[in-house]
């Protein structure tokens, strides 16, 4: 399976390392640029899916071989691995497209219909400089300063988290994460529901509201931090990513948002790939200890259950490096609990899984691709901002959406080539930003003129 492991920087906020593509067991993938191009094209996926079922077990073994660093491989095995990787890779691309698309759809639908999220009602303390200044230079300066503050907060929190993890303060991290997800699931949902009901002028009494939110939140906590049906877990993760993205869209001033998006991708790149980057250290520490990293902050397309990596069997051991690129978005304090949560689930999982080695192997195979929730959040922030502020409306949103998905494809491709943790943000966000600005300023007048004359190209 091709999965990327991205180390996302854990944002300071509890939120965490949400973003990062992580590869679950990734079979050793020798270079397969050509094949990857095909998977990028995406057309082969349907065909590949047919053939994915047959070759699961050799995949895992191949994984183990590659992971143990066996330098000499038979070419046949290599070819087979390549092919398997290709097949799995394409399947996983699709498995990631669906949740990312769903998250974006939820965010765009909310932005377009609920007025609350596009009104300017103040800013967060992380972006103290206002953008209401008359001159362009001053505004630009303010947004850059906002970005610097935000990114430094994120860096500090990430380093803090890594230190906590290094010194095994698991309880603290767990508590942090639980508080954070509690806040997210209850408070933000309450606000969101309130605004949606206001928009559609639907009356709801407090007892009903309490019941609905209580159930939603409680089931969410159980699903995310403990066990639950995979699809329900995925649905909850998508929902909280969407909620977080909406908060960001509302509270980030215009220019700051774009600069922050750009800066975050650069930071992501550095944090994951530099030898001293916090995320890389996080992943390496987790690898040394044979533990999964913050599973609750990662979206997994297959069994999310953190299968213990502490298997004596080297074949099954694959560093499940979950790039937790936490969406730094969580600037708010409640985000921190989220971090703790994932950590908690992480430590919980190795314990029951130890004796079951063969089952774990199967589990790991099934794991599929992992993408950090922060990635979801930032992608949605980009598309949501495009929907909120672009005057060309839907064309721009659509263009950003396609650009992000193509970026995701490319990142998955690179993941299969490099087979280690990779940042999921840079390529997609770059494409997204380029397409946003170019579509808004250049394509829009063209399309408008064409439409007014009813010409077709």
């Amino acid at each position, binding site marked *: 399976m091709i999965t990327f492991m991205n180390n996302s920087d854990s944002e300071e906020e509890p939120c965490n390392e949400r973003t990062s593509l992580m590869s679950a067991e990734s079979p050793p993938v020798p270079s397969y640029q050509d094949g*990857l191009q*095909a998977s990028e094209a995406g057309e082969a996926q349907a065909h590949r899916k047919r053939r994915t079922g047959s070759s699961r077990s050799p995949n895992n073994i191949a994984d183990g071989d590659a992971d143990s660093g066996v330098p000499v491989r038979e070419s046949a095995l290599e070819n087979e691995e390549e092919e398997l990787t*290709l097949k799995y890779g394409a399947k996983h691309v699709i498995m990631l497209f669906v949740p990312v698309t769903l998250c974006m759809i939820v965010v765009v639908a909310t932005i377009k219909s609920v007025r609350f999220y596009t009104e300017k009602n103040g800013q967060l303390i992380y972006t103290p400089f206002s953008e209401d200044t008359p001159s362009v230079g001053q505004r630009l300066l303010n947004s850059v300063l906002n970005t610097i503050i935000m990114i430094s907060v994120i860096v500090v929190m990430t380093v803090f988290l890594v230190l906590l993890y290094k010194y095994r303060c698991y309880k603290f991290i767990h508590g942090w994460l639980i508080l954070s997800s509690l806040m997210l699931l209850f408070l933000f949902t309450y606000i969101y529901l309130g605004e949606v009901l206001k928009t559609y002028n639907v009356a709801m009494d407090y007892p009903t509201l309490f019941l609905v939110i209580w159930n939603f939140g409680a089931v969410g906590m159980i699903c995310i931090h403990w066990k639950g049906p995979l699809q329900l877990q995925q649905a909850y993760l998508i929902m909280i990513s969407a909620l977080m993205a909406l908060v960001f869209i509302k509270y980030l001033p215009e220019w700051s948002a774009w600069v922050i998006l750009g800066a975050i991708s650069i930071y992501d790149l550095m944090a994951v790939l530099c030898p001293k980057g916090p995320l890389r250290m996080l992943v390496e520490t987790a690898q040394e200890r044979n533990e999964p990293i913050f599973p609750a902050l990662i979206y997994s397309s297959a069994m999310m259950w953190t299968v213990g990596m502490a298997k004596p069997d080297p074949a099954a051991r694959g560093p499940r490096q979950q790039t937790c690129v936490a969406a730094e978005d969580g600037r708010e304090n409640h985000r921190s609990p989220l971090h703790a949560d994932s950590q908690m689930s992480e430590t919980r999982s190795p314990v029951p899984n130890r004796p079951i080695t063969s089952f774990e192997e199967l589990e790991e195979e099934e794991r599929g691709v992992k993408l950090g929730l922060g990635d979801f959040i930032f992608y949605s922030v980009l598309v949501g901002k495009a929907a909120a502020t672009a005057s060309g409306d839907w064309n721009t949103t659509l263009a950003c959406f396609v650009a992000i998905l193509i970026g995701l494809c490319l990142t998955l491709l690179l993941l299969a080539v490099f087979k280690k943790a990779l940042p999921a943000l840079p390529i997609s966000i770059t494409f997204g930003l380029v397409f946003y600005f170019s579509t808004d300023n250049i394509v829009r007048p*063209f399309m408008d003129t064409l439409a007014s004359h*009813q*010409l077709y190209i």
Partner: protein
Amino acid sequence: AFFWLVSLLLSSLIWFIAVKASDPRDEPLQKGLLIFGVMFSVLLQEAFRFLYYKLLRKAIEGLVALSEDGCSPISIQQMAYVAGVGFGLMSGAFSMINLLADALGPGTVGIHGDSQLYFLTSAFMTMVLIFLHTFWGILFFHGCEHRRWWEVMAVVVMHLAVSGSTFCNPLYVGSLVPSYLLMVIAATWAYVLSGGSAQNLRRFLLCKF
């Protein structure tokens, strides 16, 4: 879809530069620039289709090299079809989506003296374009595959003709009718190239296998 988007981006860039460099009050010039923009965009779209073909060709070669039995899991025809659909969907989405969004709001069609059939004809035109892109994809790839450049030229000429016919709007007879005729021609041509025949069609329609 991405490739179509990039081609649209580049062609809009050219048009934008041309417009900015010219006099905005000169009506015939603006119209001329628009026509130039449209034609250039069509050519650019076809160029990107060709680039996409090249990319897919390499991908197929890679797949064949990797596969166990020497044949690729997905054929070039399937890729041609999907490429066509991608182009068509993107083109259709970009043409229609703002229209649809506006259609949800209040308003009267054609209140300023324009045609009242604006939405209807736009819908039909978009539909025919999506179909055409799909068929052109198949024809184009087939032509590139078998080195029959006249097929490729035929696709480009057809695209130019369809875009050009939209200049007759709002005289919808001038644009819709030829487009649909061209679509029928392209459909039968693509069908024949993909291995269909009248016999296959009959068997399909009568549900016999």
